């Protein structure tokens, strides 16, 4: 309906009559009397859009793009900072992976002289401590949040009072080996007239230090060099698990036991319960805690005289004597007399200076139980005016530790409201080690730096800043540490550069090394002073052994869900402690695993489920410390919630029960065993979250098949066999095949080799994998239902008599089969084969039929039974942005850390150089303290993985079903010729 147009010229007429709009004519359908359709839509669109915008209610905010980025900062690219682990006092070197300004993963620092690249489960998990939303977020005064100004003023007033009236000030800490902290503790305490610093270790080695005071006139802990030892005699010392510095020791131990090396250390473990070290021993002597002293005495005699007491002792002594200067006797006893005997024995064998270093002594445990006992007595008597506790939880860890509340003023510097902090008048909110400056000197002559990798998430303060503030000289931690290093370490290091360059190098490397001051040599082994006390065996009852688990240690990490959920390397139980009983003892008491027993001694008692543990001394009951911690109450909601879900916590609202009240002070030492313990059944029973139901490679005797009851899954060999000529290398047996190979692997063929002989089963890899791959925590009930999500598990098999079995650990994870049974059965192609040999799982294609998991002979696939990932804005900062967080209903599994493979490939492409062997390290490989895992490319014949694949020790698990796993295992080396019929089991 065009309105009539008038024209004034021919040109105008032409313009009007031109068919400009006609070609795209408006639809004849119009709205009568209103705007046309297009106009209506425009108006409608505008008003709709306007309404929408108005409805959003967000005012425009101006943002500016960061055109000039901070130098060296590339979004999405990780930066690594060298730092030091604070998970325990061993102080391993770490590399902190920082992505977009937040630390997401800890790795071992391969250059660090103490830990040499490994990091244990505790270290791996300590990142969760940073992103813990339930930390003490700001200082607290009498249970109420306060500002730092208020808290400092409050403390300062009280301290000034004490400074004036000369009241008793006591500072109770764990081992302090930080040079700066030590300096400031001294300065702080010097400002009082009556002040003392007491160090203690909840897992104490005080007797070793005390023994050295007797024999070496210095209260030192020697540095044990397992890497130099040819004969290792470990007496009740779990050096691979929890004793002093397990990462360092495991590495040294693995080096001493390289079957291809020139020497192969012989290891005998003497212990009352099956420890992680005991599982690796060539010979294991099971002795009750009361027999240890006599054993050491006999051994000492045998070493001195060469005579023979018990035949076993005589053989050990003979081996030690033969390996003069290359032997190592370590002992975990807390009896100073026993330790003195051990020291003299090592001295007599010439081991000091080689396998025990005193001039570069360890500072990893400095606790003094004598002083601790004194302090507790003072506290009980109410003679302490101010008690400051830092980095320790005496109320939980110590028998009678509740006495800390009797101090007139209790000040606690803590990250969390643990038992001690909960009773304190003042809580100084401690920073996590990833957000604060600090330092460490785990071994004399090796100082290690702790760098912050993120600004403090909460209003927290490093310990040294707090000390300086309360001394009256407040300063930043960085300034304090720089100052300390400039004054003490820089001169000792004798660097040829200026301090600024030295400092930069420290920050890059993470540590400095220098020659420590020479120490007076040991007094020559004097005649034996005193027979060690021989504890007469208790007339009745059990002997109690209190020990620490590799993950939870003394309990400081009870808040940590990864450490609660990692199955114990020996018992395979997660989320609990329990009373370990020997099979014989359990049978006598008619107790089965899971039956709750009451353990009673000296007026103290604890009720725990029993666990039947092969290899334990018949007359002992062993209980792990560190459980029943207040911090574990947070797991009330761990795990999925549904109608049949059972709680993670026990009836007390905690994980496990605290056994620390059963500890005793004997002759001034914190003692981990005692006799005369009564055990009684309570009649109740609980289900333990044990991830392994069957514990041997042999099927039940009743169901023994004709073709063999024992499965060749863990294979063993002997040194003699390895060293026999002609067996050095194994050739891949080429099977006759009807079909051409499915997968040619033209560029890379990723593979892994696991050395079962080196593997100690410590589970560091399991937690590293969890951290790297965003593996959720599922809680006790799911673990109990065998639904653990760990992509990597460590299978543990016993063989031989249950009284003293042999043990094999076998890390098990996706074998990335060339003929993968999982790939063919997925109906939707959610799991497929890459041309580099990886079995790829495509999460967003997975519909969750679980057929792949059923068809996996290794049962390494993990299914998201529930929506396990949770919304937690703080905790989820620890997620690795390179790895998808899986939703419920999809299958997942080990990917060989494909994100690391891709990253390395991209990097090599960018740098225009071929990928080198070692460029890619999987998370498990990186963290392994024993370096038992090697990842590499089989297409590269010179790669370490290819070399190990050709080793004579290499076999593949379930080779006979021809799924062609890409993972090779190196056989365990047993020292003695295996007995008949035991050739293939572990």
């Amino acid at each position, binding site marked *: 309906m065009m309105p009539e147009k008038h024209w004034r010229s021919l040109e105008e007429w032409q313009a009007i009559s031109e068919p400009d709009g006609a070609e795209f004519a408006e639809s004849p359908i119009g709205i009568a009397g209103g705007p046309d359709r297009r106009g209506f839509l425009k108006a409608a669109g505008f008003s709709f859009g306007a309404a929408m915008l108005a409805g959003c209610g967000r005012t425009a905010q101006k943002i500016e793009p960061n055109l000039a980025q901070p130098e060296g900062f590339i979004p999405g690219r990780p930066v690594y900072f060298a730092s030091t682990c604070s998970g325990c006092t061993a102080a391993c070197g770490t590399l902190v992976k920082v992505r977009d300004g937040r630390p997401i993963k800890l790795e071992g620092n391969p250059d660090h002289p103490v830990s040499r690249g490994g990091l244990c489960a505790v270290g791996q998990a300590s990142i969760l401590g940073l992103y813990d939303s339930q930390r003490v977020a700001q200082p607290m005064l009498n249970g109420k949040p306060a500002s730092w100004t208020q808290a400092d003023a409050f403390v300062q007033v009280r301290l000034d009072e004490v400074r004036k009236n000369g009241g008793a000030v006591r500072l109770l800490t764990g081992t302090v080996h930080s040079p700066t902290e030590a300096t400031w503790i001294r300065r702080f305490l010097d400002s009082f007239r009556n002040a003392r610093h007491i160090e203690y270790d909840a897992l104490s080695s005080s007797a070793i230090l005390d023994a050295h005071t007797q024999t070496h006139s210095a209260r030192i802990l020697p540095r044990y060099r397992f890497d130099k030892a040819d004969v290792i005699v470990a007496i009740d010392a779990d050096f691979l698990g929890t004793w002093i510095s397990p990462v360092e020791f495991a590495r040294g131990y693995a080096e001493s036991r390289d079957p291809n090396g020139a020497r192969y250390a012989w290891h005998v473990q003497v212990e009352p319960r099956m420890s992680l070290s005991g599982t690796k021993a060539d010979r294991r002597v099971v002795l009750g805690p009361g027999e240890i002293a006599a054993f050491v005495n006999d051994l000492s005699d045998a070493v001195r005289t060469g005579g023979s007491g018990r035949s076993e002792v005589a053989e050990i002594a003979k081996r030690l004597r033969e390996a003069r200067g290359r032997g190592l006797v370590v002992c975990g006893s807390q009896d100073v007399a026993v330790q003195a005997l051990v020291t003299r024995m090592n001295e007599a064998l010439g081991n000091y200076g080689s396998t025990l270093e005193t001039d570069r002594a360890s500072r990893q445990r400095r606790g003094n139980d004598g002083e601790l006992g004194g302090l507790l007595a003072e506290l009980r008597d109410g003679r302490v005016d101010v008690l400051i506790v830092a980095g320790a939880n005496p109320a939980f860890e110590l028998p009678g530790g509740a006495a800390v509340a009797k101090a007139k003023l209790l000040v606690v510097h803590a990250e969390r409201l643990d038992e001690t902090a909960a009773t304190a008048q003042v809580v100084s909110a401690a920073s996590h080690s990833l957000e604060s400056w600090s330092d460490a000197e785990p071994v004399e002559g090796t100082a290690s730096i702790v760098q912050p990798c993120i600004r403090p998430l909460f209003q927290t303060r490093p310990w040294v800043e707090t000390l300086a503030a309360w001394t009256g000289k407040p300063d930043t931690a960085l300034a304090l540490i720089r100052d300390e290093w400039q004054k003490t370490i820089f001169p000792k290091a004798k660097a040829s550069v200026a301090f600024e360059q030295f400092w930069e190098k420290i920050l890059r490397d993470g540590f400095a090394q220098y020659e420590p001051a020479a120490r007076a040599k040991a007094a020559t082994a004097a005649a034996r002073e005193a027979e060690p006390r021989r504890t007469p065996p208790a007339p009745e009852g059990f002997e109690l052994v209190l020990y620490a688990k590799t993950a939870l240690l003394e309990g400081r990490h009870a808040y940590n869900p990864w450490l609660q959920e990692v199955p114990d390397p020996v018992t395979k139980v997660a989320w609990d402690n329990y009373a370990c009983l020997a099979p014989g003892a359990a049978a006598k008491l008619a107790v089965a695993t899971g039956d709750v027993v009451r353990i009673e001694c000296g007026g103290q008692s604890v009720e725990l489920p029993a666990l039947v543990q092969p290899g334990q001394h018949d007359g002992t009951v062993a209980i792990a410390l560190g459980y029943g911690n207040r911090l574990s109450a947070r797991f009330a909601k761990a795990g*999925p919630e*549904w*109608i*049949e879900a059972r709680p993670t916590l026990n009836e007390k609202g905690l994980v496990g029960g605290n056994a620390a009240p059963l500890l005793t002070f004997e002759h001034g030492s914190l003692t981990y065993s005692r006799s005369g313990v009564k055990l009684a059944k309570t009649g109740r029973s609980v289900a333990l979250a044990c991830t*392994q*139901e*069957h*514990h*041997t*490679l042999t*099927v039940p005797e*009743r*169901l023994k*098949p004709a*073709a*063999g*009851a024992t*499965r060749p*899954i863990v294979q063993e060999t002997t040194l003699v066999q390895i060293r026999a000529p002609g067996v050095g290398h194994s050739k891949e047996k080429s099977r006759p095949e009807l079909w051409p190979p499915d997968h040619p692997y033209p560029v890379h063929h990723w593979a892994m080799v696991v050395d079962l002989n080196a593997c100690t089963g410590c589970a560091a890899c399991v937690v590293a994998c969890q951290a790297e791959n965003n593996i959720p925590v599922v809680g006790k009930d*799911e673990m109990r*239902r*065998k*639904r*653990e999500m760990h992509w990597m598990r460590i*299978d543990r*098999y016993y063989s031989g008599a249950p009284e003293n079995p042999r043990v094999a650990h*076998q890390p*098990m994870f996706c074998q990335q089969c060339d003929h993968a049974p999982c790939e*063919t*059965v*997925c*109906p*939707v*192609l959610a799991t497929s084969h890459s041309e580099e040999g990886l079995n790829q799982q495509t999460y967003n*294609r*997975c*519909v*969750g*039929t*679980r*057929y792949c*998991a*059923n*068809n996996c*002979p*290794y*049962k390494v*696939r*993990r*299914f*998201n*039974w*529930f*929506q396990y990932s949770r919304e937690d804005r703080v905790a989820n900062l620890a997620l690795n942005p390179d790895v998808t967080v899986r939703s*419920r*209903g*999809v*299958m997942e599994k080990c990917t060989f850390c494909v994100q690391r493979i891709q990253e390395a490939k991209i990097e090599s492409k960018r740098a225009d150089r071929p990928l080198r062997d070692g460029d890619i390290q999987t998370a498990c490989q990186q963290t392994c303290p024993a370096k038992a895992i090697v990842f590499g490319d089989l297409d590269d014949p010179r790669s370490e993985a290819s070399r190990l694949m050709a080793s004579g020790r290499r076999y593949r*698990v379930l080779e006979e079903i021809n*799924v062609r796993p890409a993972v090779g295992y190196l056989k365990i080396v047993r020292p003695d010729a295996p007995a008949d019929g035991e050739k293939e089991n572990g």
Partner: protein
Amino acid sequence: MADIVLSPPLVSGHKSLVEVTDDVCRPMERRPGLVWWAAFAVAFSMLLLGMAAISYEIATGIGTWGLNTTVGWAFDITNFVFWIGIGHAGTLISAILFLFRQRWRTGVNRAAEAMTLFAVMCAGIFPLIHMGRPWFGYWIFPYPNFRGSLWINFRSPLAWDAFAISTYFIISATFWFVGLIPDLATVRDRAQPGLRKKIFTILSLGWDGAYTTWNRYEMVYLLLAGLATPLVVSVHTIVSWDFATSVIPGWHATIFPPYFVAGAIFSGMAMVLTLMIIARKVMGLEAYINLRHLDVMSKLIITTGSIVGLAYLTEFFTAQYGGNRYEQFVFLNRAGGPFAWAYWTMVSCNVITPQLLWFRKIRHNWTLVFIITIFVNIGMWFERFVIIVTSLHRDYLPASWASYRPTSIEIATLIGSFGLFFTAFLVFCRVLPVIAMAEIKGVLKHGANHEEAHR
């Protein structure tokens, strides 16, 4: 032929054509009785319980089932295979027996086919709900898409399953409906004007009963029977491949296809008998489902039951003879391990109990046969449970051995599947002719001389 003369009539009593129509249509045309309502109330409650359980499972996760890392399938796939097996009898009776001219089938084929459909519906639920993400269940069908284009894995037995079951369902439904048409027309003709008449008018597709119509109908029916026959064998063969193509000892066996097909016919026949023994009593159809049927179907049960028993023995023999330690163990573990009770339940129900049917006295006793069929139903459910769970729970690596225990949700889901089955069957009994009137009239004594001559 002498045996025909000697064998009892297919329809007892001297029923006239009208009587047949009346007998069959009566339950549809009167108000349901108290028995029906009671049965329906129970069945529907079971269905509701199952629906609640399934809704909860889909909303919360597969974790509400008792499965674990080692045992990834248990009740879900057990129920699936069980129902698919039940669904076998219908097509066997309607297609294969039709082609073999087994005229006794006319008394039971309608109900058996309906049962097949309902059983396949019950079975079809499980592959869907056993998925971690059932809302993406359609991904297992190949359809044109913009994902690059992403196809399914044609090598996966689960993909074959999807085809096999959907084909089976479609063909069975078509076959059943085609068979219904003449009867629907009869119902239409008897109906008073109204909604009922309209519905049956539409459903009977304008059936006019003319000679040519009958002629074409018979031809279509024959062709469909021919088309459905291979499916009787194929469906359970393919279901068995879910297991047989795997590497799990106890699953990886070449005997599975015949073993599964025999088992399916075995369980299907048992379920047909279970249902028909009740239905004839409740619905007053004693004349149409009589001792002749009981006898023939009992014999089928002995035959297939014995084949199944032989398969059990063969499995053991193959395992022992094969010398594979894993496989040997799986079978010893079945008979003596933690699930031995399930295994021996299976053996006693499937192998021992049916042997009683060798005795004519037992075979001709409705109550005893009913009890035996219940045993067979239980036994065949346990057979699938034993195959699935005992093979998975202790496979290669002893460290990953685990156990299995169903949760309340799984039990409710199993009950719910029975609820669906019985609800559907009860509704079927009310709204459609349970006996193929048109066919049964063909085997009446009516015009017996002609009948005999024809034979």
